[in-house]
């Protein structure tokens, strides 16, 4: 069979359904429409940059009606004056150069848009438009219709314009400007040529250098003074104290030197030092702009919801205005924002954001529904019981963990060293001073300042930023995204690991599926059959049209087959699907739906224990029973091996919100001594972590859903496992792509290697200090020597840590 791909989205095209338009093949009318839009507006070069870059537009029927509400829209805008309006929209589909091109040419598709600019790393587009000509809703609908549906959540509400902190860039710029110019002007001094002209203009050069060093000294280095002052105040000796001390002494002594005409001073070293240290700081900051580590429920929840007034009118209102007793309308794929009671007859609710469990739960009229669930299928009505902030799930956020400012009193490895470094340094300086004071008071002052200058722990301070910066990049390439460099040190210290079960060590993508042919009990008086390749083809085709998670799983499970056109496809929420494939009537779904015609009389004795704990799908073809598929929790690849490896070094615990139905399976799979704790509510998980911390454990929590959010925030390190890192993950310290879960042990070991690297390079940088001190204490520290030692040690350290951290990353996985 000839296989073709859709010109727009790249998916396989079924022969019977293919649409031939303008010499190109499309998989559905949606893709064709997008192509038509682009074609009419001469934007077809969209397809030139990247092959099949598009996405099939989703049905947005009524979804964005809330954008008619002026008060909601005004909260989303970034800027508005008269008719000029700017809005920033997050579009998760942005992934290639074609996306940038089409989104920056929006003004050709829609009148009223003046410019649009894409920020690729953040997956955002910033649109400037004329609000008299075009509305926000029209823009959002236009984006959706070309396959770039924006993601609007409660987080956008009142977000306004984010303040970007660019002070480090400024400081670095200033430091580089001063450093570069001072270096140029210092050259004559380096060569110490006794030439008339140089002597004549020396004063001019020196004072110019002095003037140039002022911005660097007062502005660029200001962060170090503040930090040193703070650490003295809290009586914690950190690395910034000797740095600040060194910088200040260097500046004072150099100024003194040129006033008294003793020499040229150390301004070149001073500004170089500041520049290199700021560079290290910059290098350490590696942000994954498209990820957010601070997500709470706000980024999951919609911004507005449809309320039904008592008179039957529908009205979009902001989520925060939902009140107890309101009646809400929840459409297909919409999130339930508050706890409430279901009014509609039946609903299927997917709680995968909350629990990680992908199979939807069926609720009936009068049942309680909790916030965080996503409605699948028809639209439903519900009555509100709690407001947003009082709902079961959102209450978690009122816990202290989320309130407190997360400025941890965490001692970094550099700070630990500097606790000894600073006193020893001062001791050496005073001893040197004490010795020379009896010989020559002048030299004594020189020695004292020289010691502080040369020992200024520039290399020491650079070690950690460069190592961590490099490690962050290496881990990021392996899809393990850390919030900041501090997390690496924390990782190396972990001694207890707590895992969530559902969605973390099990996958919610593919369940383990077993086929059970019709057994004898069921077979009484009924014709039955066994699924073979032919019937499996029919089933697979029938499943194709269904978006139910179980259908998708079963579809993926069944072997690859040819595609047949499906007629009379019908899906019933909470029941199953019915379809006519190649003349055979196929029914797939729940027991009641598929089998009730067969055995209304014989309903006992079939519900074995297996079926109660797992999800089962029954199948009939032309009223003949063909057995059932049982879905079981599938554990992630390499789980057993990972736990074997981890259990050697760490204490492992598993927390689960589920009942203990899987206890036996887990015990067989996991090493002995693994604690298994079931039936844990979100707050209990948090308390569990707290209890472990109370006995002095360094706890790492690995979780995925919103119900782990409390535990993730409480633990020393919260790692969130995500199937799709672009979209969802609760607040955490690190995000791990689910595919890389089995590498967790490697990541933990690598973080330890990083610490080893740092320790080794501390030794190297201390060696430089000893050499420098040798010059200083004998009273021989010339500005030229300082100017050589300082960059030399920096380069050695930077190259050493880069080579080492790359070496460790490449070592056996």
């Amino acid at each position, binding site marked *: 069979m000839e296989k073709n791909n859709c010109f727009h989205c790249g998916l396989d095209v079924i022969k019977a359904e293919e649409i031939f338009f303008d010499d190109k093949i499309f998989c559905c009318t949606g893709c064709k429409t997008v192509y038509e839009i682009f074609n009419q507006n001469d934007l077809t070069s969209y397809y030139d940059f990247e092959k099949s870059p598009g996405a099939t537009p989703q049905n947005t029927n009524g979804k964005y009606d809330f954008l008619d509400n002026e008060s909601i829209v005004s909260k989303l805008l970034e800027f508005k004056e008269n008719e000029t309006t700017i809005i920033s929209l997050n579009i998760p589909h942005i992934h290639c150069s074609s996306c940038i091109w089409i989104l920056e040419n929006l003004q050709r598709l829609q009148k009223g848009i003046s410019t649009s600019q894409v920020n690729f790393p953040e997956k955002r587009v910033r649109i400037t438009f004329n609000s008299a000509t075009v509305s926000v809703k029209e823009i959002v609908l236009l984006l959706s219709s070309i396959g770039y549906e924006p993601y609007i959540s409660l987080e956008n509400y009142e977000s306004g314009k984010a303040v*970007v902190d660019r002070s480090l860039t400024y400081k670095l710029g200033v430091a580089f400007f001063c450093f570069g110019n001072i270096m140029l002007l210092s050259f004559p001094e380096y060569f110490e040529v006794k030439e008339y002209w140089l002597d004549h203009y020396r004063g001019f050069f020196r004072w110019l250098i002095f003037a140039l060093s002022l911005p660097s000294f007062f502005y660029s280095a200001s962060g170090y003074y503040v930090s040193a002052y703070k650490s003295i105040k809290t009586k914690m000796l950190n690395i910034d104290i000797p740095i600040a001390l060194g910088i200040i002494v260097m500046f004072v002594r150099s100024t003194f030197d040129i006033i008294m005409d003793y020499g040229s001073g150390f301004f070149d070293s001073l500004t170089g030092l500041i520049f290199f240290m700021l560079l290290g700081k910059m290098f350490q900051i590696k942000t994954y702009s498209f990820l957010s580590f601070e997500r709470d429920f706000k980024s999951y929840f919609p911004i507005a919801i449809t309320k039904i007034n008592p008179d039957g009118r529908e009205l979009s209102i902001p989520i925060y205005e939902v009140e107890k007793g309101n009646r809400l309308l929840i459409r297909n794929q919409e999130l339930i924002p508050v706890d409430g009671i279901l009014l509609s007859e039946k609903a299927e609710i997917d709680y995968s954001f909350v629990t990680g469990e992908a199979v939807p739960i069926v609720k009936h009229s009068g049942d309680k529904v909790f916030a965080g669930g996503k409605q699948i299928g028809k639209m439903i009505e519900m009555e509100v019981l709690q407001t947003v902030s009082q709902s079961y799930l959102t209450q978690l956020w009122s816990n202290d963990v989320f309130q407190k400012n997360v400025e941890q009193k965490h001692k970094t490895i550099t700070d630990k060293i500097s606790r000894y470094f600073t006193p020893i340094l001062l001791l050496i300086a005073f001893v040197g001073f004490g010795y020379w004071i009896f010989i020559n008071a002048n030299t004594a002052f020189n020695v004292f300042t020289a010691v502080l200058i040369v020992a200024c722990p520039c290399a020491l301070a650079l070690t950690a930023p460069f190592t961590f910066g490099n490690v962050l990049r290496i881990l990021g390439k392996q899809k393990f995204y850390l919030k900041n460099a501090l997390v690496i040190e924390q990782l190396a210290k972990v001694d207890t690991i707590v895992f969530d079960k559902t969605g973390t060590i099990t996958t919610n993508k593919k369940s383990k599926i077993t086929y059970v042919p019709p057994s004898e009990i069921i077979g009484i008086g009924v014709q039955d059959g066994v699924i073979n390749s032919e019937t499996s083809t029919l089933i697979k085709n029938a499943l194709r049209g269904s978006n139910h998670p179980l259908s998708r799983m079963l579809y993926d499970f069944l072997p690859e087959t040819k595609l047949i056109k499906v007629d009379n496809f019908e899906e019933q929420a909470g029941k199953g699907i019915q379809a006519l494939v190649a003349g055979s009537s196929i029914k797939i779904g729940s027991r009641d739906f598929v089998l009730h015609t067969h055995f209304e009389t014989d309903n006992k004795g079939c519900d074995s224990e297996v079926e109660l704990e797992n999800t089962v799908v029954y199948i009939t073809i032309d009223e003949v029973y063909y057995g059932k598929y049982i879905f079981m929790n599938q554990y992630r690849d390499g789980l057993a091996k990972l736990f074997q490896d981890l259990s050697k070094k760490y204490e492992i615990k598993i927390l689960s919100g589920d009942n203990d139905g899987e206890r036996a399976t887990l015990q067989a799979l996991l090493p002995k001594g693994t604690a298994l704790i079931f039936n844990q509510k979100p707050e209990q998980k948090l308390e569990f972590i707290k209890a472990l911390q109370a006995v002095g454990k360094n706890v790492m929590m690995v979780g995925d859903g919103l119900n782990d959010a409390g535990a993730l925030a409480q633990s020393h390190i919260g790692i969130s496992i995500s199937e799709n890192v672009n979209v969802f993950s609760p607040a955490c310290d690190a995000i791990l792509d689910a595919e890389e879960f089995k590498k967790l042990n490697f990541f933990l070991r690598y973080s330890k290697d990083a610490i080893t690297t740092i320790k080794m390079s501390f030794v190297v940088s201390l060696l430089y200090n000893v050499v420098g001190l040798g010059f200083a204490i004998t009273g021989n520290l010339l500005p030229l020597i300082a100017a050589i030692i300082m960059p030399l040690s920096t380069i050695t350290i930077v190259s050493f840590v880069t080579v080492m951290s790359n070496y460790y990353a490449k070592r056996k996985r």
Partner: protein
Amino acid sequence: MSVIYLLISISILVAIGFFIAFIRAVKTGQYDDDFTPSVRMLFEDELIQKETKNKEESLKTEYLETQK
């Protein structure tokens, strides 16, 4: 030789000029996104497609031929 005052002043002034340009670039957000511009600068001719349409059309059919 007092020309050295003039020369150095000029060199410092030029440096300050560049420095001001840098500050302005940071202020307008040019350092916030360092990836997209690298892609954007490669777009150019696509906007004036109308004139070259026929040529593009033939190229596209050729492209499709090779695909089959």
